[in-house]
Structures are given as C-alpha cells and as structure tokens.
C-alpha cells in the first residue's frame, strides 16, 4: 500500500479546524504565560515571605512534574473539588502556567538588571515604587527578554499537542481522528507536521516584527 494523498482534500476541513484550535490555544496560553511570569516574578521579588512562599511551592510543582500530569490534574482532578473546566480551558491554563513558571526567573533576572538609575529617575519625578515598577522597570525588563520568550513560544506551540490527551481537538488529535477513519497515518501525520511547521513560521515572522518594533525603545 503506497502513499495516497487523494483522500486529503476530503478531510481538509477537520485538519484546518484542528489548526485553528492549536493556534487559539497556543496564543491564549502564550498571553497567560506572559502575564503570569511577570506576576510570578513580582511576587518572588517584592512580596513578603507569607505570600511569596506558597507561590514558590506552586512553582516547584509546575517545574518539577510532567506537563502531561499537570493537564490531567487540572482537567480530571479539579472536577472532584467542584471545578469543572472545559477541556480547552484546562489545556490553556495548564500550558500557560507551566510556561509562566518555567520562565519567571528569566524576568526576575531581567528586572534586577534594569539600571538602578531608572527607578531613581522615576521616584524623582514623584512616582511611587509600584508605579515606577509598572511603568518604568517592568516594561524595560520585558523588552530585554523578548527574544528568549519568543523561542519559548515555539516550544509552547509544540507542547500544545499534549492537550490532545484531555480531548481537545487540536491539530494532533484531529489528525488522529482522521487517521482512525482513513487508515492513512503517514499522509495525515505528515500533513499535521507540515501545518505545525507553517504555524511555526508564522509565529517567527510575527516575533521578528515585534522585535524590530521594540528595537529602538531599548
């Protein structure tokens, strides 16, 4: 039995819908992780021990255990305590938190390496410490970590395939479902791979645009 791509057009809509889910989940998780890692960094650096410590515990759990397990925990586990999340939402939260925690140290370091004179200049015009952090220090820290965070988004895209295990019909699961009907794994896995690659290229393109845009303001 050779390769036969003639069945592909017939199932293209399912695959494209899978792409849309993959893109949507990746973007949502990226946004969540973006703000999440800033919040984690601020908590780690600027809050008293009683607040900081529980968050560190959460961070350890997210860093030291498999993402797959975390997804199971959020989707199947939380139901038991009355939190019944739709699968896609559980997926976004799992992915988002995982990546937020993984990179919050990057932002912490970036915040600490913003020139001390920036905080001083902001305080000198009358901003409070919080205002200065929000408007002066953190925006600069975030700009300085855009390139590594960009690479991270690519990793996030690839890891988004894991949410297929909790039944989100993203690209990988869509391909699997089509394969279940057509018995053509090679064609459809290959196709899914091609779509991941295209999405990847698109993301890199957007990231390059962003980097170029902020290059003057650093």
């Amino acid at each position: 039995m050779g390769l036969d791509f003639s069945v592909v057009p017939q199932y293209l809509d399912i695959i494209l819908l899978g792409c849309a889910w993959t893109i949507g989940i990746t973007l949502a998780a990226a946004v969540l992780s973006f703000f999440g890692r800033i919040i984690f960094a601020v908590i780690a650096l600027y809050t008293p021990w009683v607040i900081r410590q529980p968050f560190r515990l959460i961070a350890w759990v997210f860093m030291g255990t498999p993402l797959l397990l975390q997804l199971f925990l959020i989707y199947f586990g939380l139901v038991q305590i009355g939190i019944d999340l739709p699968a896609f939402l559980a997926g976004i939260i799992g992915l988002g938190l995982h990546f937020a925690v993984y990179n919050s140290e990057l932002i912490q370091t970036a915040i600490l390496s913003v020139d001390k004179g920036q905080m001083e200049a902001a305080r000198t015009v009358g901003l409070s410490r919080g205002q200065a952090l929000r408007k002066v220090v953190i925006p600069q820290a975030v700009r300085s970590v855009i390139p590594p965070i960009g690479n991270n988004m690519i990793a996030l895209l690839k890891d988004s395939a894991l949410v297929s295990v909790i039944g989100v019909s993203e690209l990988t699961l869509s391909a699997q479902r089509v394969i279940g009907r057509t018995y053509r794994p090679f064609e459809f896995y290959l196709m899914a791979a091609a779509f991941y690659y295209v999405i990847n290229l698109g993301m890199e393109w957007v990231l390059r645009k962003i980097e170029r845009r902020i290059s003057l303001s650093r």
Partner: protein
Amino acid sequence: MTDQKDFVQIRHAQKAFGKLEVLKDISLNVERGQIVAIIGPSGSGKSTLLRAINDLDPLTGGEILLDGVQVNKTLPHRQYEKHINEMRQQIGMVFQHFNLFPHLTARENVTMAPKMLKGLSTEEADALAEEQLDKVGMLERIDYYPSQLSGGQKQRVAIARAFAMRPKLMLFDEATSALDPELVDEVNQVMKTLAEEHMTMIIVTHEMDFAAAVCDRVLFMDQGVVVEEGPPEVVFRNPTQERTREFLRKHLAGAK
C-alpha cells in the same frame, strides 16, 4: 509660604553609610531664585547631599525644608511615602547619566509623570511636552527614542522631563560630566535659560567657568564638610581656605 531667604533650608545634615560618615553637619540656606554651585573633589559628598534633598539617600541626622515644609519628616511608612512623592514632584533632579526612560519617546518621557500624577489629559500633556521640549530645543525630536539621541540631546530631554512637573527647586548632579566636550555647551545653555527665569537651583559641577558665570553662590565641599562658601568672585579669586586654594589650583590647571 515662608520667608524668601529660607526657601531651602538644610540644617545640620548628617549622613553615614554604615561607619562611613559622608556628610558631617552641613547647613545651607538657599533663597528663592538663587543658584548655588557645589564644587569639591570626588568623594567629598556632593552627590550624597543633593540626593538627600529629595530623600534618595535619606539623612541619618538633620533636617531639610523646602518652602517651609520638612522633606525628611518622620511619619508612618504609608504616610511618609505619600508625603515624599508629593515633595519629589516639587524637586526636579537631573543626573549625570541622564536616566531617560529608554522605552519611551522624548514626548512620553516628559508626559508620563504629569499624566499619572497630575491627571493631565493626553491633549494637555502633549501641549506641555511641546512647550517643554521646545524650551530645550528638542521639539524636532519629540517622537524620537533616547537611543536615537546624542548625549547632549538626552540631557536636554531629561531637563524638560524634570521641568514638566513645574518644580520649585532643580537639582543638577554633574549634568555635563558624562558628555563629549562639544556637547557640553548646549546643556549649559539650557541651564542658563532656567537661571534667567529665576529657577532656584543647586548645581553640583566641576566646570568652574560655568559656576562663576551662572551662580550666585559657591560652596566648596571636602570630606563631608563645607570648607568655604561665598559669591563666586570671592571663592574663585580670593579663597580664604588653603584646601580651597589647593583644589582650585589642581582643578583650574587640569581644566586648561
């Protein structure tokens, strides 16, 4: 409002970093509209004194008053924060290394604090930015980022940023010493304009010519004390203290 003579009062200012005494009982009054230069060797405490005035380096003893209000009051933390933020809005500061916000344009550098703290609308803030940047000759570069400006231009924007809060007092800490020599003049020019408008200023500088031309009074500091003070003619031409003479000898010789 207080007596014009006591617009800025520094009373028995003391500052120690751990065991290192950096300011040893410094007192100084500045009249409204007066311009005071502080000169002295590196490490003598000039920056620390300036930074104590807006509480960036809090004093360990003594008082600082601006227009009759004590800057370094003893208050519970929250109230103190509120108080000091209000005081700092009235005290503009210009740093040796500009400390412009690199992620904001010249316009945004100027408008950020007035918008956040004085509730200016975008139109009002833009008008203010145009006015202030025009005054320092930077209107043409209003939408440039600091990375697109020369040192002298950055410093002029930094002056506009400080001035946009309409401060009662301006502090300059070696505003021109990080600049290439050919850029010093444009910044000095701006400072002269402020002087002509009778802005009250305290200027730490190593440019004796500028101090002599612009300032009403010169303070010579060494090792945390004011060794000598007086009008520039006297301090520069006929200093009474040997330490002042020695400093000026070295400095004027080095500068020429």
